Structure formats: structure tokens, C-alpha cells
């Protein structure tokens, strides 16, 4: 029986509950421990479900469960894009 919470990182409801029992009882620590929300979609589906599980398991208010830090890039990009030369500029390799 599989109920998926984070599709990108393949985390199930059981994985989250187990991690909470081990003491990872915040979104930020769950993220660091399990890579929750760190896949290609950047937490678009899983954070809501993870919050519900956290609330159920710990009794915490959703209000306290701020989203983990967001950093660019917001979506996967090829290295060639980041390493691209300036317009009209010299390529420095």
C-alpha cells in the first residue's frame, strides 16, 4: 500500500511519519533529511500534504510551518545555460 506525498523524490506517507517520529518535525528538517520538496517541481505538490501530516502527528499549527527557503533557479536548467557567454562577449575558455 503506497500513498505518495512527494512525487519527485518518491517519498511516501510512511516515510514522512517515520521521519517525524525520529524527530524531524519541521518542514525545514524534513527537507534536509528526506529531500522533501527538492526535486524538479520544487515542492509544488508535497508541501501541502506534508503539512497536513505534520499537523496530524505533532498537533502543530499550520501557521508555524512556513515554507522552506526558496532559492533560484526555480526549475531545472542545463549547465550550458548558466555557463553561456555574454551577448557579443568573448567566450573565456
Amino acid at each position: 500500500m503506497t500513498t505518495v506525498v512527494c512525487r519527485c523524490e518518491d517519498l511516501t506517507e510512511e516515510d514522512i511519519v517515520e521521519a517525524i517520529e525520529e524527530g524531524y518535525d519541521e518542514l525545514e528538517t524534513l527537507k534536509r533529511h528526506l529531500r522533501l520538496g527538492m526535486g524538479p517541481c520544487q515542492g509544488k505538490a508535497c508541501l501541502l500534504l506534508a503539512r497536513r501530516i505534520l499537523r496530524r502527528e505533532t498537533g502543530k499549527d499550520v501557521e508555524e510551518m512556513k515554507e522552506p527557503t526558496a532559492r533560484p533557479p526555480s526549475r531545472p536548467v542545463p549547465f550550458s545555460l548558466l555557463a553561456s557567454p555574454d551577448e557579443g562577449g568573448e567566450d573565456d575558455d
Partner: protein
Amino acid sequence: MSERRIFEHPILDFDRGYEFYFDFEGKKIKAYEGETIASALYADGLRKFTESKKLERPRGFFCAIGKCSSCLMSVDGRPNIRTCVTLAEEGMEVERHGPKAEFPQTDVGRGGERKKEEIEIAVIGGGPAGLMASIVAARNGSEVHLFDEGDDLGGQLVKQTHQFFGSHQEDAGTRGIDIGKELLEEARDVGVEIHNGSKVLGYYPEKKITIESDGRLEIYDSQGIVYAGGAVENYLSFENNDLPGVYGAGGVQTLMNEEGIVPGEKVLMIGSGNVGLIVGYQLLQAGVNVVEIIEALPEIGGYQVHASKIRRAGVPIRASHTIKKAIGDEKVEGAVVQKIDENWNPVKGTEREVECDVICLAVGLSPDTGFLRQADCEMDYVPELGGFVPLRTEDMMTTQRGIYVAGDAAGIEEATVAALEGKIAGAAIYEELHEETEDTRRSKEEAKEGLDKMRKGPYGEVPKQGVKTCTVDEEVCG
């Protein structure tokens, strides 16, 4: 195998381009000009697009708008291509690579030269909020650049075949798709520079944004930003919730109303809010059987007028019901639903199997605020508006001076509200960078009156309370 493409539709005309073929794992797949790889494969009957990385579960078409990770395949030797937003081309070679792609064996090329430009106003998101903000700022004389990740602008309006009613007289009786087209035309007329296919990668101080467009990096230094990035669909917990055949309502709309492909034969709809009811009706219009609509709350969430249309078509709507699991190994072959009591606990002995090949989730939306969080805009949890939303002034400025927000990203309401908020944001950002004009003053006034009207009545009270709690004075802004 029956044809999954829609050729006759009561409202939409699918103007398909020329027919061609591409290669998928040794098989010739038919596609039409303008179709994405994922759509053509879906129309051919493919359901398993990839495999998940640890549990090795089948994953299929899901978000349809380039946000999730379920459709990554190798295209002409390049791995990890989002096939739902990549157009099919004649002779292309496509194959599945599962969760772990091999290192590319072919030369995958280099990025083009990066572009750097100083601009005045950047508007992110080309839905009703972003279009309206762009129009107002541009018609007053600002140089406005509107960025949207899709090929077609209009946001979710482009999928709305139903007529809007609401109290906003201008839009009443017009179909969403037509409102979108009109706004886009107006934006072009007033000189808004439109960048489609432009995916925002990140925010950097001071008001710098990076964009990927056509394989190229673009860096824009702006003086002001209106963020109108919309919402993401909520996902739901139940056994086998990741099987191919479980889709968000937005994915179903994209496939059906933009690509002209039916998602399946028998659909179980989860959620009876306006989205569930409207998409349910759109499925019926496309000739798909909607088996039933279930709703966890004790009563229907959406407008009665939509619910009546569904009921007249013979589709049952069952309140106080939830989905327990999806049945199937490689794809959805059915579902188990059951009754729940007032405390959301399942009622024993009420489990029932439903025959379906698609489970459509219409269980709400959440504001898409990643960009605003990158910009350090202060957020607050406002359940009435769908979750965490940015604090904002009455003029729609976030706690970061010069960064404005409008539409669903500011809180989940509907398209007319989004447009009105965009109107305010567009006028306010012009005033901040220049001065008040007769038009900006009037635009703000009219839009604020319009919002007051929209937030009255039985459906308006909830968002009204929500907006109250996250509206702040300008002194709070940095």
C-alpha cells in the same frame, strides 16, 4: 484503439496543423503541428511515461504544464526533457529513460549567448492579472515587459469554455477564452512587449530577474515588478495516488481544451468546487463519461448554476464522500470511494468500487509564491485565501517596495478578481515610478469598487475576511 483526439466540439475549434510522424522507441507516432510530445504520445495510448526514482512506480502524464517530474524523457539524445511542454517535430527520436538517464552520448550543444537588458517594468505571468497590470501601466506610458512561460498568453482563461457571470458587468456572458484573447489584443495595442515561452528562473536583488527562453539565459534589470504567477493545484493523499490516470483538473483542461485530446473514457471527479463542476461539464462537452463527482464536505462547494448543469446531464454529485484508493497496477482501472462522517472519519461498510480510467483531482489551489519568497516578501498563512500569501498594501504592493502582486498568487479567488487586482497593481506601479494620472487614479478607484462588489454575498465573505488579515499599511514596506 479509439481516436482520442477531439474533432467535433460544441464550442472549441481545434485548428490542427499538418500531420507528421516522429519515432518513439522504434514506433512511428502520429502528431500534428503544434502538439507537444506528451500529447501525441497520450493520444497514441501511452500511459507510462517514466518510472519513479526509488520505488520504481509507473508515472504518467500529470501536470501538463511543465511543473512536475512525471514526463521526463530523452529527446534526440538529450535526457530529462519535459515532454509536456516540448513541441513534437518531424523525425524526432524520443525514448523513455526512467528515473536515471545515461550521460548524453551525443553533443547536446551549448547555451546561446546570454542577453542582458535594463527595463522599466517586469510583469511575470500572462493571465488576467498580469495582462491587466501590463495594460494599465503601458497605456500610461511605461515600458512594460510581460513574461509568460507558455506559448499562449491568457493564463487559465485559455482553457475556460464557459461563460463568466459574476457582477463585473464587462465580463458577464463572455467565455473565458474570449476574455483572454481580448486582453492580449489590448496589451499589444498599448505597446506591452510580450515575451512568451519565457520561464522565470529566479529573483536577485535589486529587482533583477533571470529568464530561460529558447535555450538562452536572459537577465533583466528592472525598476519595478508585478508578480502574477498564479497558483498550483493541490494534491491529495490516498492509496496509489501516483498511478497514471490520476490527474489534476488543470492537466485535464490543458489536454482537453488546449490540445484537443480526451483524457480517457470514464472519469471520477474528486471535488465539487467550481473547478470540479466546470471541468466535469467540459468533459461532458468533449464526449467523455463523468461517472460521478464526490465531495468531502457535507455540501457542494461551487455555484448552484454549475451543479445544476451537471445534474441535468445525469451525473450524480455525492457529498460527504472521499476516495480511499485508486485501483490498478500500471494505470488507473477503478477507484474505491466511501462516505465520511462530520469529523472526516470513514463510515464503515460504505466502501464502494467505481469503474473509471481517470481520477481527476479538483481539490483546490495554492498560491504559487516561490518567486516572492526568493525576493524576501513577508508571507502570512491565510486559509481563506488558500494558504501562505504575501502581505500587501491596498495598492497590491508586497513588503518589498516596488514589488507588486496580483491574482491567485496573492490569494485564491477567481479570474475577475485577478484582473481587478492587476488593474490596481498596474496603476500603482506606474504612480510609484512616475506620478498619479487621471487614468491611474480612476483605474484604482474603479477596481477597488469592483473588488468590494465581488467580495460581497455568500461566496465573497470568506475571501473578504482573508484579504483583511493580510492587508498592511505602506509603512511596513521596505
